């Protein structure tokens, strides 16, 4: 089946919404740009030549398909048959590049001459800077000043790739503030600028478009598991920040009722501590960055409706919002969402390193940390696919500090 045919089978939002979630809660100035993007996406989505261009770059530049690896020692450890979908092996080291390739090809088709993006961990910033270099487009990246410090290696990578990195000093100086600043840039330069959003967040059509572009993870995994194990998996497990790697893995399996979806959010220092990023687990419905979804927001009189600080050891999960399709999956029960703490993520990162020789990103480690719970549901003979969203090089300083090896 062609990519366009596979994509056509994925669910389309209805009037920009997944159930009650999504929509276009943005300033009027941006509405025509978003309408133009939606139209361009509808055309591209149905166009075999668009997918031919994207698939060619995914194969020959990104290195797809990514491996589906049977992790036997990890399986023995957690008590189920675990397969790792190795997005960490992609060029630039995470799933983020899948989305960037697709949006950059779209930007070029639309004649947009300048790319902007927000980034948290820096993975999306690096992936955007990479495609900008590849396409010869100027690129500006907004990154919270706190993340600039936490992820300094990625800042250098972006600069080497020719991007300008703007540290954002407002608000909590993290991903949400970077997104605010990128929106301000877009409002100002809307005629020639393409805003390359890095997750399934933001106004419609972004949650839909980014999920479709990331669905290459699930579309490949589906073929691979049928090939290797001869059957569908019992569960899919992925970490959820904005939710793009999880949505990309889950979406092609939506109609397979026997396949459980488990999203793993960051519990930070513990959900009860108040310092966490478990948006679906502990948040409520609200409106942030253009869509209605679950958000971490205050409800008391003094701070009513102000966005709460998110916290996670992993900058990529440190976001007080989440994609609207996940909100819809939570409400319908199609997916369940659990949370793992900083410490549990760190232990899982160590476990994966020791059992399989794979150093994953701290974001990814949250998914690994939920494996024993999922294994206890699917049982010893159960098959689990984990989205191994990224590699851990960027986190080595944080990990070394946590282990006491660095000050």
């Amino acid at each position: 089946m062609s990519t366009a045919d596979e994509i056509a089978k994925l669910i389309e939002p209805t009037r920009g919404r997944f159930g009650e979630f999504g929509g276009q809660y943005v300033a009027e100035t941006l509405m025509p740009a978003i309408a133009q993007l939606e139209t361009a996406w509808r055309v591209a989505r149905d166009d075999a030549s668009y997918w031919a261009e994207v698939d060619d770059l995914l194969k020959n530049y990104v290195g797809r398909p990514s491996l589906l690896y049977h992790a036997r020692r990890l399986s023995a450890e957690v008590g189920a048959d675990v397969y790792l979908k190795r997005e960490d092996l992609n060029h630039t080291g995470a799933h983020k590049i899948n989305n960037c390739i697709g949006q950059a090809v779209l930007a070029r088709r639309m004649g947009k001459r300048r790319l902007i993006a927000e980034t948290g961990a820096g993975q999306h910033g690096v992936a955007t800077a990479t495609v900008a270099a590849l396409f010869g487009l100027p690129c500006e990246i907004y990154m919270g000043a706190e993340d600039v410090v936490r992820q300094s290696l990625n800042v250098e990578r972006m600069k080497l790739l020719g991007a300008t990195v703007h540290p954002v000093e407002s608000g909590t100086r993290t991903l949400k503030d970077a997104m605010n600043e990128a929106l301000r840039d877009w409002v100002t330069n809307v005629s020639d600028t393409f805003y390359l959003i890095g997750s399934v967040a933001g106004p419609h059509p972004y949650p839909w478009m980014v999920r479709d572009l990331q669905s290459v993870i699930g579309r490949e995994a589906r073929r691979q598991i049928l090939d290797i194990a001869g059957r569908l998996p019992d569960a899919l497990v992925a970490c959820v920040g904005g939710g793009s790697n999880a949505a990309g893995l889950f979406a092609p399996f939506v109609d397979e009722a026997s396949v459980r979806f488990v999203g793993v959010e960051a519990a930070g220092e513990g959900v009860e501590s108040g310092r966490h990023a478990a948006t679906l687990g502990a948040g409520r419905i609200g409106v942030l960055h253009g869509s209605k979804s679950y958000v971490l927001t205050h409800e008391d009189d003094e701070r009513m409706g102000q966005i709460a600080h998110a916290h996670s050891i992993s900058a990529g999960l440190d976001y007080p919002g989440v994609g609207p399709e996940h909100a819809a999956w939570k409400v319908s029960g199609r997916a369940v969402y659990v949370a793992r703490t900083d410490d549990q993520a760190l232990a899982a990162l160590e476990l994966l390193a020791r059992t399989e020789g794979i150093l994953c990103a701290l974001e990814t480690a949250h998914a690994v940390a939920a494996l024993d719970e999922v294994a206890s549901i699917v049982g010893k003979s159960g098959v689990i696919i984990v989205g191994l969203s990224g590699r851990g090089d960027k986190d080595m300083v944080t990990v070394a500090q946590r282990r006491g090896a660095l000050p």
Partner: protein
Amino acid sequence: MTAQLRAAFDNAAKENRAALVAYLTFGDPDPKTSIDIVEAVAQAGADVIELGVPFSDPSADGPSIQRAMERALIAGASLPGAIAAVAELRRRGVKTPIVLFGYYNPMFVMGPATFAERAARAGIDAVLTVDLPIDELDELAGPLATYGVSVIPLVAPTSTPDRIARLAGLHAPFVYYISLTGVTGSRAAAPVDPARLAQIRTASGSPVAVGFGIRTPDDARRFSAVTDGVVVGTALVDRVAAGDAAGAPARVAELVRALAAAMTRS
């Protein structure tokens, strides 16, 4: 409460000038002083007050208003506080129509119906929600209408004719035309095309106020010649921050008097 707002624009028109819409952030530099500032601004000749509700993530605002909102939040300002402030201004006898300006999440978390009921009771005339374009406006405009509170829609340079035509159904007391693509306070106002304003006025059936980048009495004079209303925000917010809290009401009122004087068309 469309009537009071319409009356403000009609009055100004009768006096051969544009209406002066003065934006201030509630809670900046602190809730108590900001109430005094609004009272002083009303007395200094503003025809309409636009009172900003501080939000943690003001993605459509430039640095001046962002910082004002940060100061306000640190000083303890909130949506319930802003509503209470309007009630207090009405108790003090301020009759000037007040438009509450803000982002949707605080209103949504309060609950659109509760928000509408409390806003009406406090004496708020209209609500302008930056991140509720006409496509999403119903979920708030509906409850507000139940309590007689109107909505003020935004029109941008990028707005297409079909989008502008949809405003007619709102019967808005006025329409806010953003004179440039960008965030608040980013650049000097570009001249607006009177034909564009006429088109918006005709299509929406409402008077048009122009804002973004209008700072000085000179700017105000130029815009007053072509529009029904002139919105000044960042320049007033900068005045608030340009000295101590005690002097803020007088500092801001001084600029408002100069702006009001510049409105009369020659």
